[in-house]
């Protein structure tokens, strides 16, 4: 295992951009969504179609495959989006100034909050067909996957060493050659790692995604998520166990058969020549690399990727392109168009929100604070146990090598799948969802903190540990001088990821199915969103989604990003 996800996970850096730019982007985004929602409502048609889910375990492989293929299709879209968007942002200075803030906001917006409006919209646009549902499902998975991949590729392109770019220029590479020979190899390592994280993030809302209900309408897709949901509502314990097992199996299989080999393979693109302490290993890759068949396929691709370009003309001095006299003033044409679009959206949003009374606004803010308190408590409690455990694992390389993959798999498991079971447990223990939802949030979020802490702790140099021993520091002194500052940058990365996860989870953990199909809810913004969705209360839905999105972006800006800067400047090891 390469134990450095803390350094490899890409988040946007610096806080040089203004907050106002972010807010403008956010407003525009919400406005466009709400605007199209309004449009979608015009086309509203009742949707009646129920997919029967077969609870036999023999049907499970098929359902798993369906869910998996949704993830793969979404990943395909993410990859295409990443390659196009990041390249555009990296090479077009003017576009970069807009594209990167947009990306940053999109990354911190709790997208599942938009799930409901989106579903309504797409189902209504493409009525009577399952296609709209599939598309929504894929879109939501896509939004869980794409952002950090795009950031990763963008930063790789921005950090492309000049010399490599020069080599490409001197060898007269065309854009395709430059892309495959220079850019892609340089970015592969980061891209593969972030793809792995992304794929895991995409599963999170699987259950919610595939078995979705608005009011009396039932939008259900066949898949492992809906299988689980049906099994839970029918109280079929065995089917639930099968589903969880199938999910874990899928995650482990994808990890072992796809990501691990890719990760090891991508190591050859690493620029630094030093050998890492923990080498990523993959038995599959070794085996593949020794098989003749695989070699043939590889050769085919290699030749295809590196096929000599059809020479358009014998190599000669580059002829300067004739400069076209008429320049189309794209800026002046596009900007007003965009402005008009955003304007219409904002107008619709305004109309929608007008329906929310002052009392309701106050309630929304009250619920926001409650959910915030839950998110922070969940992070606090997770930190409390993950820091000692993570530091212990991280400073024992043997355990780290063994436990890192397990924590990563635990982090990939979509915890909402088993929320109803846990809720049952919570009530059985005489708890309630007001407190219980914190536990549900932790279930997903804590793993991110844990594996970042492990990575951070295992990066602490042996000499510093020796130094604390020889100066006879004990107990708390050691934690204060060495471990806490040493893991701090990794911890902050973990917090940011975990907080994002917890906000997303609030939507499903504050409002969930209990036993006997009764709905249980806690007081909080996540529950408000779900409730207004069930009640088909669109003004309320719009207002609460907007408030949550705003607040999360604001909180990222004001708290997490600043903390990350402090961590980087003061507590980075290996100066």
């Amino acid at each position, binding site marked *: 295992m390469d134990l450095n996800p803390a350094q490899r996970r890409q988040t946007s850096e610096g806080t040089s951009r203004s907050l106002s730019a972010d807010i403008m982007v956010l407003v525009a985004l919400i406005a466009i969504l709400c605007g199209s929602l309004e449009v979608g409502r015009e086309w509203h048609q009742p949707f009646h179609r129920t997919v029967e889910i077969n609870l036999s375990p023999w049907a499970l492989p098929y359902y798993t495959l369906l869910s998996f293929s949704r993830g793969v299709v979404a990943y395909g879209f993410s990859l295409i989006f990443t390659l196009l968007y990041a390249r555009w942002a990296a090479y077009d200075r003017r576009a970069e100034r807009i594209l990167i803030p947009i990306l940053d906001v999109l990354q911190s917006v709790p997208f599942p909050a938009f799930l409901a409006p989106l579903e309504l919209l797409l189902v209504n646009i493409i009525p009577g067909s399952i296609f709209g549902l599939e598309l929504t499902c894929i879109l939501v998975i896509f939004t869980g996957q794409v952002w950090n991949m795009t950031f990763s590729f963008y930063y790789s392109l921005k950090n492309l060493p000049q010399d490599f770019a020069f080599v490409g220029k001197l060898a007269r590479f065309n854009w395709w050659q430059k892309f495959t020979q220079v850019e892609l190899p340089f970015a592969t390592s980061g891209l593969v790692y972030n793809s792995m994280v992304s794929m895991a993030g995409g599963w999170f809302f699987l259950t919610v995604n595939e078995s979705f209900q608005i009011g009396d309408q039932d939008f259900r897709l066949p898949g492992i998520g809906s299988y689980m949901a049906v099994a839970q509502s029918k109280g079929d314990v065995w089917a639930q166990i099968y589903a969880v097992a199938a999910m874990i199996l899928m995650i482990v299989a994808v990890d072992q058969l796809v990501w691990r080999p890719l990760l090891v393979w991508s190591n050859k693109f690493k620029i630094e020549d030093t050998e890492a302490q923990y080498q990523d290993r993959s038995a599959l890759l070794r085996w593949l690399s*020794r098989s003749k068949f695989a070699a043939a396929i590889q050769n085919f691709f290699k030749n295809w990727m590196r096929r000599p370009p059809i020479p358009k003309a014998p190599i000669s001095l580059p002829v300067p392109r004739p400069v076209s006299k008429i320049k189309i003033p794209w800026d002046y044409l596009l900007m007003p168009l965009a402005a008009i679009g955003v304007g219409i959206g904002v107008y619709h949003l305004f109309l929608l929100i007008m329906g929310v009374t002052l009392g309701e606004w106050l309630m929304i803010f009250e619920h926001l604070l409650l959910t915030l308190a839950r998110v922070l408590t969940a992070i606090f409690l997770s930190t409390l146990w993950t820091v000692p455990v993570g530091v212990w694992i991280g400073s024992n390389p043997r355990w780290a090598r063994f436990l890192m993959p397990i924590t990563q798999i635990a982090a990939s498991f979509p915890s909402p799948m088993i929320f109803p079971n846990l809720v049952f447990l919570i009530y059985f223990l005489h708890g309630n969802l007001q407190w219980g939802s914190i536990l549900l949030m932790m279930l997903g979020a804590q793993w991110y903190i844990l594996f970042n802490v492990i990575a951070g702790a295992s990066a602490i140099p042996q000499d510093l540990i020796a130094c604390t021993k020889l100066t006879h520091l004990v107990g708390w002194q050691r934690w204060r001088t060495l471990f806490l500052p040493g893991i701090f940058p990794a911890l902050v990365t973990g917090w940011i990821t975990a907080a994002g996860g917890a906000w997303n989870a609030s939507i499903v953990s504050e409002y969930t199915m209990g036993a006997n199909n009764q709905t249980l809810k806690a007081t909080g913004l996540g529950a408000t969103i779900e409730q207004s969705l069930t009640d088909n209360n669109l003004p309320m839905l719009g207002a609460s989604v907007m408030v949550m999105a705003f607040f999360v972006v604001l909180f990222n800006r004001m708290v997490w990003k600043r903390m990350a800067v402090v961590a980087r400047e003061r507590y980075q090891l290996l*100066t």
Partner: protein
Amino acid sequence: MPETNATPLVELIGIEMRFGEDSTEKLKVLENINLTIQENDVMALLGPSGCGKSTIMRILSGLIKPSSGIVKFRGKPLQGEVNPGVAMVFQNFALFPWLTVRENILLGLENSSYSLEEREQHFQKSIEMVGLDGYNDALPKELSGGMKQRVGIARALIMEPQILCMDEPFSALDVLTGETLRNEIGRIATDPGSGFKSLVIVTHNISEAVYLARNIVVLAAHPGRVEKIVSNPLPYPRDPASPAFQQLVSQIHAILTNSVLHDEPSIAEPEIVSSETIDDAAFAPLPNVTMGEVMGLVQMLGTESESIFALATRLKKDFSTFLSVIKAAELIDLVETPGQSVRLTKAGLAFRNADIKQRKKLMGDLLLDLKIFKHFADRLDQSETHELTEEEVLQDLAQLFPNERPKILFRHLVGWARYAELFSFDTRRAILKRFEKEYLGKPPASRLKGAEA
């Protein structure tokens, strides 16, 4: 060694150390180390890389536990705890990047019973000793390497340790800074007010050892063991230009040369030589040297003998590293080493005068004379696919050379063989095979015929 009746500060008795490369194979890095450090001693641990000198220091400070043997501090054996009398200066400084210079230094007193005022006095004294006034509030990343190491030294001095351990303290610094700092350590070591009783310094630099130490422990590698303990009676401050100093330096050169090149243990070890061990001995391990360095050496030499020491000085090469290069060249039979000198063999001369193509051919033949290369050439020919996996090669190496790290040997095996166009190693598939020329597209027909003939 001056004999005293008082209990020695530290004793190492029968220390052995094995590290597990894998769980199956354990590599012996230290064998039967016995050392005694008296009060007011300055001891240098000197030796080629891989002789375990840093490991000895970490064992005596209690940071790691030896596989067997006892460490005694003032007569009392350590039992898993850190040696209470030790402070350490690290090669890479080991400063806490988030603490200021002042905080880093005061860390040494964190757990002492001193009052705040006493701490302040100690702090002032130690920064004065290393010349760090005025840097109190700087963070380590703002300091140059030399300044960082001064902080490291001050942090160790403030603890007033019985034994100050320094692990290659100057080797991460540039030459000038290292020189300055070494002189200051010499001054501090002989200053009775400096606060520590004895100094143990790990180094690979001979004149550094002679400049500082009263006792120089020369170590041999594979497995690490004490070759000889040389006492150094020269009075402080020592003058590196003086004849007595120079004589001691060349004496140590001779010890190292004998130990590395001629494999003559200075202390006779009774060992029954059976025919089997002779056979094994012919399987000489490859020294930790690249082909490029060997080429460089051959380029430097003629058929006239040259003094190894003079050559090393001229090349500004670290002596024990240079010895390994000579050992490698001697193994391949490019040079011979009568006494303390080195000259080209016939093969070496032919090699030096050859062009690049002939060189590769010559080198291929020379390497095949070495048992280790012959062994793998045979193994490759015997194998059905004419390929060996990395794991198979490593297994063989581990069996043939139980005292070496198979992975390092493997790296050099591949490196040498690649140069000689003997074997090639496909890193992606992790497979060793005989070298074959590969062409882009189809090989020209004439060449194919040539290869068949």
